């Protein structure tokens, strides 16, 4: 298992993504690596851009763990409460010219991962996602 703590995350999106992607658990993936690379980008962007209104004490903790059959990523931040599971999916019935340009990231994560759970505890958003590993 690897635990990462990123203090003062504003403006560090790319560096945070790069660091998470170098954990042993993610580097060792084969077929699932591309999906994990995608969801890490989506979730880090979401947290850095929207979690904190006051960036004085902003941080992000990330935990990656791996078993033979599953990779688990846990994202923990102290920002405003935000339950991504309650976010409305994009309205695909709308004509393309009326579609929202943003808001696709969380939806993509939910579609790409096998499980996605959220809790708000001890003043922290805790999002846990898992992906089964094919053999």
């Amino acid at each position, binding site marked *: 298992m690897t635990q990462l703590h990123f203090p003062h995350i504003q403006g560090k999106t790319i560096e945070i993504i790069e*660091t998470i992607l170098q954990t042993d658990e993610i580097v060792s993936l084969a077929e699932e690596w591309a999906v994990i690379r995608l969801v890490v980008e989506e979730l880090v962007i979401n947290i850095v851009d929207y979690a904190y209104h006051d960036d004085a004490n902003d941080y992000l903790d990330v935990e990656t763990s791996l078993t033979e059959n599953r990779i688990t990523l846990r994202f923990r931040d102290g920002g405003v409460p935000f339950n991504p599971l309650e976010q409305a999916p*994009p309205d695909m019935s709308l004509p393309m010219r009326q579609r929202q340009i943003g808001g*696709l990231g969380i939806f993509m994560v939910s579609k790409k991962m096998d499980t996605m759970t959220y809790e708000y505890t001890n003043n922290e958003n805790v999002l846990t996602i898992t992906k089964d590993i094919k053999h």
Partner: protein
Amino acid sequence: MIGNEIFVEQTGSTLHVDLGFQLSVANAPDLQEKLNAYKDQDIKEIVFDATDLVHLSSIGIRVFVFAFQKFKHEPKIVFVNCAKAIYDTLDIVGITHMFTFVEDERSQAGPPENEWQEKLEELKNKDLEDFKAHNDVVVYQMKMGGTEE
């Protein structure tokens, strides 16, 4: 995660965009800015070459939606050599009907599955190089343990 720089070339009323291996937070905003310079011109077709594309995130998808919605003359949007995984990502968000998908002779080179894995390995190696170059920018702590119980 340094994004490959993406260039936009104009030939008459067509824009050619070689997407390279990734369209992500690292390069999509730059591409959108470049495309923005053409949105009021008489552009009839935008050709996105996805021959080498293995990573497409939502911020990259925004660029395509931007091209569809904001270009004044509603150009035809063509996607060349789109890999299945990239197509599936576009399909998840319900925008495949925005594009005309075509393949050229380059899509026939080598067994597709092997080629895809080779490109992913290249991207993984590049990520490591970028991390080594950048990792002093972020202060972080790493605790290593055994595998999960």
